[in-house]
């Protein structure tokens, strides 16, 4: 993932575990990409909030993700 420290990505991978569904990985990928883009794009607070809302709404309806995180004890 461009612009993100590979060590951060490795750590997140290890925390979500090997069995994590592709959609969950995609979710984190989008979140981190959004943060990396924020550096040059400088979204307004309202815009970034909207983007987070949209990412969360999109992935929270995914059954595979919900099943996976439902079985994980935080």
């Amino acid at each position, binding site marked *: 993932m461009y612009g993100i420290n590979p060590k951060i990505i490795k750590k997140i991978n290890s*925390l*979500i575990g090997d069995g994590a569904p592709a959609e969950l990985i995609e979710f984190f990928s989008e979140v*981190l990409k959004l*943060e990396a883009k924020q550096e040059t794009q*400088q979204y307004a607070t309202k815009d970034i909030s909207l983007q987070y809302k949209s990412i969360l709404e999109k992935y929270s309806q995914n059954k595979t993700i*919900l099943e996976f995180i439902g079985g994980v004890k935080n």
Partner: protein
Amino acid sequence: MEGLKISQLSSLKVRSITVKNFRTYYGEKEPIELSVDPKKPVTVIHGISGRGKTSLLNAVHWCIYGFEKKDKNQKQTSSEGLVHSYLIDNLQPGQEENMFVRIIMENENGEIEYEIEREIIVKKISSETSEKWNEVIKAKIPVSITATTGAVFAYKDPDTDELVRISSEDNIKDRLEQIFPEILSSYVLFDAELLRQFESQNEDVLIKKGIETITGLPIVDSAKKHIEKENKKTTSSNVSAKAEFKSLQGEIERFEKEISRRENENKTDQKKIDEKSTEITELTNFLVRHDEDAIKKNELEMKKIREEITFLGESTEQIKEDMKKVIFENLSKYYLRDAFMITNEKFERWTKEGLIPSRFTKEALQGLLDDKECVCERPLGEHDEEYRENIVNAIKKVYEAAVGSEIGKIRGVIEDVIDETGSESSSAFEIEYIKYQTQLAEARTKRATRKSELLKNESLFETDIYDQVGIQTRQRKKLEQEVDSLKNAINSNNVKLNVYKPKLIEKEKEFNKMKKEEIKDEFAKNKIKLSDYAESILGKASEKLLSEFKTDVESATQEYFLEIAPQAKEFSGIKIDDDNFTISALRKNGREKEISQGQAHSLGLSYISGIRTITRKNYFMMIDSPFHNISQESKLLACVDLPTKMGSTQVTFFCTNTEYIGRIEEDDLSEEIDSARHVLKKHGLLGCEYNLVDEVIGEIDGEEYRNTNVVRIS
């Protein structure tokens, strides 16, 4: 699943630097192209001192940040400003000119990632000649010249891969601050002479913050914060028992606030305690040195010293008196010596000639007449008249002899003086005089030493020492009371924290339970579920990564340091402080000894190289005076190790000709050691090299104007 895709570490290299009228660089120069070849990552820009190496590094800093790297030694009176003075001094009324620096940066695929151009436009609006400090140009220039700044920033849009150009100053500042936080410059653009900055924490270099920033950790924290915010919004807008829920949420917020306030208070108080404790230690040391026994002992000591000084003063006077005597008592003799020599020679001559009668005592002959008897004790009779007459005649002669005798005595004295002032005795006299001189010098030195001892003691134990001890004792007591009160405040906060923290956990549990029960809407429930999960993952990642980063940096730094440091075998390793990330070298057997300049330089370079293992991007590196203050051998190790150990990091060295080209014999016995240039070439690391040369471009009122040219060598 394999998890998030890990691409190679993205790199950021400077493709070119173009300067126009920046400091010593007059006119627009050809772009200085730096090596972007990962196999030959080194570019060297060298020149003799004062040619503009540091100016070029400053040009890069100024272009990115809008100001040059902080130089505390830079004086406001300096005549050389950011804009070449020949341009300023030749501006005609109504004329407008500009100075700019342009940097093009590329990524690991050779695509332009950023382009930054910053300029200053100067315009002469009148012929007024009086001068004033100009904050834009950073120099004293005629008030008739105006200076305005501008900048253009272009970045590759991550979605379209197109370059997007922006030119509003404020917007550029924010974006550049995000991409190149100022703190990054300590690790990217730095002066190797300042490498010791990592050994201690100061306000200018917040090492820990710098490291956190360049690893990209703030991205994780920021993502967590954004999700948290969204989570709260979803929760509060979907809960059915709004009042109850809000009250619980309010309680949690109050606990959080209270905990954070008390924890911050504790931190501040602890800092105060540390400061006061240092002060208390200093006062205690003073009071230990000045307790009653110590004062009395010192008073006795001072009395003794004073007496000694008086005695030495008297001795000095006595020696001076003795010296005077030696001189004056002998001086007359020496003064008369030549005259005596002549007189004595005369006497000798007269004696030989019979002009001076031989010695005889008249008293003996008079005795013969007075006693009226002969020397054989026979009485002198009338018939001895002739004999008597002979005696009278003899007495007459005796008077003459007496004169001779006196002269003999005088000669004796003269001969004595001549003997005493002969070369043997004058050497003895000189020895005696030197002995007195030595004694005098010794006495004077001893007296001066004693006097300074006395002064030192007097300053330590001033006349009002008892008052001072009293003041310091009261001060210490006051500080101790303050420390106690701060400790009490911390304890009291801790008591509260011990209550609040479990309560907060309890309330959070209650809140989460209520969330589950109250939020009926499945859609919101799921969103909250994912948010909670993401918050937890990002929180854990941030927490664990910082300590892992520290461990990684520590091990990489240690490896470099033990390889390149002069006398590396004296060390067992390095240590990074947990609180502020300052670095120190550990000596074998725990011996405490200040490290040398060369070792400190290697430590700083190793630290920067170590930090490179955890940065979010493989940033270019530009180092001014990289080989300053280190031995030739360490220099060669550093110039090979730095670029090779750091993978394909683009490295630009700004160094003097001597540092770069010079071959040095470390001592008379050792063989000549290669130059840095030769070593870089031998290892195939040198991509480009430039030489800075200067020329005179004009003269105004006897003042020469110089211009630096950048000549590409290879």
